Structure formats: C-alpha cells, structure tokens
C-alpha cells in the first residue's frame, strides 16, 4: 500500500511538471504570436497615420495638432511661391473637394520639384510660428519630406 502510494506520488509530480511545461510553452507561443501579429509593417504605419489625419478637425482647430507628424498623399492643386518657399494647396485622396495648405520650405528633403496636378506623398508636421510682428501663426502644416508616389 505504502509503495503503491510512493509510486503514485512520483507519477503525480511528473504529471504536474509536464502540465506546467506545456502551459508555459503555449503561453510563450501565444505571446510570440501576438507580438508578431501586432507588429506593423513600415507601409502599414504610413497608412495608419494618414487615416488618423482628419481635415475636418484640422479646419476646426489646427493648433491642437501641433507637433504631430503625418504622411499625407495628395495632389498638388496650386502653388504660391515666395522666394524658394512655397505654399502648396493639396487635395487629399479621399476628399477631392477640400484643399489642404502645406508650407514647403526650401530646406524640405526629398523631391521638391513640385508640379501642379501631380500626386506626392508629404511628410508633414503641424507647427506654430510667428510673423515679424511676433504675432502667432498657428497650425501650419510644414512639409518635412516629399516623395513621389
């Protein structure tokens, strides 16, 4: 009876170990799978940023977006120049009846030979500046980088 009890006790300990091991492996696999599943690709990251930019919100109160960086795909509708700086009116893909003003400074990287009617990808940051009279100029989307589509 006693031996039978010992054997039975050893068999029970080994069973618990396996259970824990399997459970651990499963948990680890699930964690890895989840992490892999949740890790975005670089293209998917640009698309997600673009979706989150709301031109309606921008028209209401752009200064709330100050510091945010967005990648926007848009068609150049109009260009106003002052020296090497340009203010570009861009129509977004999903809202062709709207125009978004983008300030392209001379130091913006990427392809900067903007032409009217062509579609580009703009990496922009919402900035606040000031005039010569120190009057604030809020919520201006300044282009950091321009890429062709």
């Amino acid at each position, binding site marked *: 009876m006693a031996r039978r009890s010992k054997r039975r006790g050893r068999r029970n300990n080994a069973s618990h170990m396996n259970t824990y091991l399997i459970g651990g492996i499963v948990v680890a696999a699930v964690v890895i799978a989840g992490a892999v599943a949740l890790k975005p690709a670089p293209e998917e990251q640009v698309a997600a940023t673009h979706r989150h930019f709301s031109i309606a919100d921008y028209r209401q109160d752009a200064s709330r977006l100050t510091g945010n960086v967005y990648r926007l795909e848009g068609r150049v509708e109009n260009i106003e120049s002052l020296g090497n700086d340009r203010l570009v009116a861009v129509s977004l893909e999903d809202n062709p009846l709207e125009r978004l003003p983008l300030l392209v400074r001379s130091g913006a990287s990427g392809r900067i030979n903007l032409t009217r009617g062509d579609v580009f990808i703009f990496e922009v940051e919402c900035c606040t*500046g000031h005039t010569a009279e120190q009057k604030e100029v809020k919520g201006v989307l300044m282009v950091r980088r321009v890429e062709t589509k």
Partner: protein
Amino acid sequence: MPLLSVLLTAQPGLAQEKAPTPAPAPAPTPAPAATNAGPQAPAKSTRAENEPKAPELFGVEIPLLDPASDTLSYNGGLFDVGNNAVVRARFEKYLQQNPDESKEARAYRAKMEELLDITQRNARSSSPVGGANMVLIGRGLYEMDSYPPDGGQAGALASAMVSALQVQFANQKRDRENDKLQREINQLVTDTNRLVNYNTGRGGRMPSASGRGNSKNTGSKSSGQVSGGNVRNVHSVRISHNTKTIAGKEATQMKNDAESSTALALAKVNYQSMLAALLLSRRYDHALIGANSYRHIFRDGDTALKLDKESKAAQLFNNATGMPPTVGSIATAASTARREVDQHMEAVANLLKANKLSDATQHLIEAVAVGEYMISVSSFPAESRRRIAEYWGLRRRVLTSLNARDYGTTEEIARKMKSLDADFDDAMIMSYCAARKQQSDLAVRNALKALQAGNEEEFTRQITEAGAIWPRNPRLEEGRAHLQKFDSYDPVKEEFRTLVSRKEFRTIFNEQSRFEVVAVDPELKEQYRDIITLISTIDGLLNQLEVAAQQDRVMGPCMAYEMLLEKREADERYASDPLFSEALNRYALAAHDFVDALNLATDCEKRDELGSALANYYRAQCIYPGSRLAREGVERLTRVILEAEF
C-alpha cells in the same frame, strides 16, 4: 361756272340772316381760334376793303359759293356751307323729314313732269299766244298750287302768266283800235286831198253831200256849199276840220301805242322778276316752265332781261355768260341747276351703297342747299336720310367737342365716324387732338415737377395752362390730388422724419405717393430721393439675385449671399431693410456649406489659427470658385504664412 355758283347758292333765307354763324375752317382747324378766343369767336371774317363788291341782282346781293373751300361769301362774310347755321338747320330739317309719298305728292310730281315736258316741246312750237298748250300749262300750274309744299309758287307763276297774257290781250285790242283809226285817217286824208284839189282847181269833182266822208264832214261840206258862192273857198272849213280830226286820231294811235309799249315793258319786267325770284328761291322747275313759256307770252322776240346796263345784275349775267342777259340765261341756269342736283343725288345713292358716308353727306348737303325743292331731293328715301343724319350728327358733335376743347370725346367720335366710313379722313383731327393732349399733359408734368420742387407759383401757372389747353384732361385730377397733399404735407413730414430715424425705409418706399410731398422741403428732398433710390436698388438687386439663384441652385445662393454681404458692408442701411435681411438669411441657409466655411475661416483668422483659416477659405473657394471673400482670404493668409518664421 360763276353764274351757276351764284344761282345755286342764292338763298333768300340767307339774306335775312343778320348775324350769321361763322364759317370755321375745315374740321380740325377751328380749334386754335377756339382755344384762344373761345366759343364766342368773331362772327365772321370780312373781306378786304379793296376786294370787289359782291354782285347784286335786282338790288339784292347774291351769295357767291367758292367750291374750293365750300364757303359762301355774303354780306361781307364767309360762311361754311356745311356749318352755317341756316344751311345746317335746313339740312337737319330735311334729314328729319320723311319723303312725301302721298297721293297728292305723286300727283304734284307727275303734273310737274308733265308741264316740264309740255313746255320743253312748246318752246320749239309756234302755237299762238293763249293757245291750247298755254291753257294747259296755266291750268296745270293752278292745280299744283293746291299742293301745300309747293308754297304757292305754281299759282304765282300762273298768275304772272295770266297777267302777262292779259296785257298782251289789252295790247291786241289797242292794236285793233289803232288799225281802225288808221283806216279812218286814211279816209279823211283822201277826202281832204280831193277838197284841196278842188279848191285849187287842179281837177277833181265836187264831193257830193252823200260822199264817202263821214257824216260830220258831210254836214260841214253842205254848209260850205250853201254859204259860199266862191266854190274854191267853200271847203276850207271842211279841210280844216278833217285835218284836226286826223291829228286827233293820230294822237289816239300814239297814245295807244305808248300804252301798249308801257304795258308790255311792265309785263315783261313783272314776268322776268317772277322768273328771277323762282330761280333765286331754287324753284328751278317753276323757273324753267316760266322761261320756256316766255316767248309764247311775249311774241315780239325780245327776250332780253330788262336790266339797267350799269346794274350789278346785268354785269353779273354779262360776266357769267359774256352775252347780254336774256330769259334764256335764266332757263339755262335753271336747267343746269336741275342737272347738277340730279347728279348730286345720283352720287349720294352710289356713295351710300359703297358706305362712303362722308362724301355722300357732302353731296347731299350741296344737293339740298341748291335744290331742296327738287323732286329728286324731296323724294330721297327715309332710310338713307337716317344714315346720313347719324353721320351728320357725329360731324356736328366733332365740331362741338373740338370747339369745347374736349379732345378725348373728339377722338372718340372721329373713331366712330371712321368706323362708319372707312374713307373718312380723320388724320388731321387725330393729329391735332393728340398734339393738344400732349401739350396739356406736358404742362401737368411740369406742374407736378414744380410742386415737387416747392415752386407753388409755377405749379399754379402750369396747371392753369394745362386746364386751358385741355379742360377735361384726366391728369388734372392728379394735379389736384398733389395739391391737396401739398397743403397737408406738414404731418407727413413729421412722420417721414420719424420713419427715417427708425430706419424704416421700406415703409416710406411703400407709401411714396403719400410721402413724396416732403420733397418740397429742401432739407428732406435728398433724403427722400436717397431712400427711394436705395429701396429701388435693393428691390432690383433682390430680383436679379433671385433669378440667378433659380438658374444655378448651387453657386447661385453663394453668389447671392456674398453679394448681399458686400452690400451690407458697403452701406449699413441695407441691413435695416427687412426684405434684404430676409433674403440674406434665405441665401445663407441655401448656401450653408459656403457660409459655414467663410464664417469658420473668419473665426479662425481672428484666433490666429491661420492654417485652419486658410483651409476654410480653400473650402469656400471650392464650393464657389468666384467668391471674392474666399479669394481675398487665401491671398492674404498665403502671404502671411509664407512670410512667417517657424
């Protein structure tokens, strides 16, 4: 034919007219005179002093007709045949009469035709005086005398004929007596010659006591024979007696001749006077019967009218025919007049068939004026008379209304006359009326302008002139109404000021007829004009925008909203007009996306959210590309952002 004209228009009635109605010129022309002188214009126009005097017949001036102007010259005046009171009255009386178709009338006309026929034939015959035809004519005339409308003319002619014939008969009796006396004279001369021959011894036998001399001579001779042994001297007394007897008989002959000549001349004058009177009283049928019978009554071949060569009547006939005046002249004139009248009546009938009432009336006037008593005129049908009477009445009313300067009525009647007679020439009447009405309207307009300028004196002058030109001008009432407003403008002025202070311009505009009197006040004049101009401009603008908004339901309201917004910014009075504000709200609602974008852009710009503001201006520009506000906002912010430091 001057003589014809003279005789055709010779009317005894006219001679009795002491103050004849003037002869206005043809229809439209009298009005200027009437305007200046009124209805009581001078009664007649007189001839110039150096003009030749009118001809006279038997001491009575003969009216002369000028066919070119339908005017009659008489007693120094000119008369319109169609408008003279006497002629008019006679013509109207004629138009209102029914043709006499009684048995007596028909018998009278038949007898007249018969006598005319007899006298025409008789004129070529050589039947003796008092022949059967003359008896027939005389009896016929006396029968016609019983017909009242003849006016006793036939009886008078018959009496003249009888008188002339009686004179002729008396002359014949005297002729016979003279013949007898001549035979006696011849006997006495023969007897006396024998006695003289005897006494002188030249031979011859002593006449016996029962000689062929008369009984008295015989007695004388016997006494001579007995008393004287000297035969040669015994017949001297008888000779002397015979001589005296011859002289007495010759004197009687001469007396008879003189009486005959005098009676004949007097009879001719009387008869010719009757013929002339018949002619002048337009009894041409009677005159023709009398003239054709003349040479059968006076068979001496002398048909010359017994007129003094220096008399006007003689000159008249001489001038008319170039020949010495004769009874034939009267017959010719009567025949011609009859023919003229018949032609007129034929023309009247034809013109009536063609509905040419104007010309038909003119012909009938002339026919009645010339030959009122002729059969063709007196038997003119009643229905035709009614038609012409209606037209004639309109013509009279035209003249009356024209004289009264009632140009509206004149035009109305002229149009009615035109509808009755398409050939009626109403151009002159209508032109004249239109010109006078325009003059009056212009004066009313000037009066109202003067009133608006506060010039009451000029207003009174102009309104008086307008009334004088066209007394029944309906616009005169307008002037009176304005005058009443002018008199009561002070309360209106106060009300106007109150409304202006409340900026209730639309109320002033809606009641501008009541408030326009404030324009007499130089202080309020400009204000009133500005308000009227402002509201008129607003109304015009709103109408235009409404059309545009209907045409383009997307951009139209945007354009309308922006334009109204600009107007409101340019002139704050626009905002006070309720219609303007209502329109602005309506278009703002219709273009709410555009309006929201602009409003948000403005709001963001105020908060220095220039990125947002520019995006909103872009949005507004996308909705309405022609937006001036959006374009200016984009330009302004673009410049600021480009120049800003970041």
